[in-house]
């Protein structure tokens, strides 16, 4: 019997074991990271520095995107609503889609592209230039000094950015709907307030973006920490961060949405 018929089984086995290996590595990394979170939280200045690079620097892209997404939603929503003569519901449609879905999801996708990729590249380069090894030599734990502050910064900034995105989007829709199209200002806000529930819609949306923050933060530091110490390795780790984060956000969004809104019409 030749080896050829069995080679694909071999390849399958190799694929499964490498993935299991990586999964185990990720699990041990996450456990170690959560172990040093307490120490890292005490060093506020490190977290503030990362909040600046991840959060403050992402402000402009998030607010501008939110504004435009809201304006597009208003134009498209108006097109459909005017057929049924209920253009006053424009505020409801825009607010619900932003607060429940688009705010958390689009912000997390933007954050993965804008901030997480930079975090991965930075940590990967620190690994490649032996800065992490040097810290270890000086008895400074790189997990607590470098990794944990970046992770915490992602978890703190994403919900705030998602809130800003939704708020900017609603203001964008208000500019288009009320000022350009001419929907009644009072109806726009009052219908929105009657239909948007603080607990079901806003708190759930914020919870989503905290979960996305944990996922995107973990992926970015993990990929950076274990990036192969070459130029190519750092480049592919950065790409993997963006791809994996985006997929994880969309998958988690589906799971969370089903869990949150399934029993709503009971």
């Amino acid at each position, binding site marked *: 019997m030749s080896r050829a018929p069995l080679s694909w089984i071999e390849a399958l086995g190799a694929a499964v074991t490498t993935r299991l290996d990586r999964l185990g590595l990720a699990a041990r990394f996450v456990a170690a990271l959560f172990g040093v979170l307490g120490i890292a939280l005490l060093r506020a200045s490190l977290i503030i520095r990362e909040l600046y690079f991840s959060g*403050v620097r992402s*402000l402009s892209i998030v607010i501008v995107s939110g504004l435009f997404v809201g304006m597009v939603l208003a134009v498209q929503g108006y097109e459909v609503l005017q057929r049924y003569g209920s253009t006053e519901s424009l505020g409801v449609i825009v607010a619900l889609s932003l607060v429940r879905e688009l705010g958390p999801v689009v912000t997390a996708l933007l954050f993965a592209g804008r901030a997480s990729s930079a975090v991965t590249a930075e940590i990967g380069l620190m690994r490649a230039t032996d800065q992490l090894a040097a810290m270890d030599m000086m008895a400074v734990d790189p997990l607590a000094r470098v990794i944990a502050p970046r992770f915490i910064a992602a978890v703190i900034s994403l919900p*705030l950015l998602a809130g800003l995105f939704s*708020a900017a989007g*609603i203001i964008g829709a208000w500019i288009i709907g009320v000022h350009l199209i001419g929907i009644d200002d009072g109806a726009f*806000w009052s219908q929105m307030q009657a239909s*948007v529930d603080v607990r079901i819609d806003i708190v759930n949306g914020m919870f989503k973006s905290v979960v996305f923050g944990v996922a995107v933060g973990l992926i970015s530091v993990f990929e950076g920490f274990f990036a192969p110490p070459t130029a190519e390795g750092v480049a592919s780790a950065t790409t993997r961060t963006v791809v994996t984060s985006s997929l994880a956000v969309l998958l988690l969004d589906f799971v969370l949405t089903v869990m949150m809104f399934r029993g709503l*019409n009971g």
Partner: protein
Amino acid sequence: MNRSKFDLAVGAFVALGIIALIFLALKVGNLTGFDSGTGYVLEARFDNIGGLKVRAPVKSAGVVVGRVESIGLDGETYEAVARLRISSSFRFSKDTIAVILTSGLLGEQYIGLEVGGVPDYLSNGERITKTQSAMVLEKLISQFLFNKAAEPPSQVK
């Protein structure tokens, strides 16, 4: 960039984020409306609740005074049992009528409370005895057609 610049920028960022969340909670959502868990509960039984949903508003004279907390079916009488959570700042007399109404032609359904004249008030857990079920369009149409068909008995034959 020195330390205080970071602090300033991050402080502004966090403040802006919190302002956005407050804007969402107060201007977009309606935090000022009373939340569930306060107030008292009344029970109303209907033959048919139509499209009434949990969390639908309960209105008196058009003003929201509470929300539908739960909807169930009595297994013996086959009546729909709606539990209404009413804000504790309103009291309703014992002969109040609960009616299922629709806002607008295609709008959502809500419960309207029409207050009677008895000086005794309903308290927590009591039942609104007089109710009027939802209008079901199909029934209305079939009733209309049935009446139409039954109208001229003399012309038969």
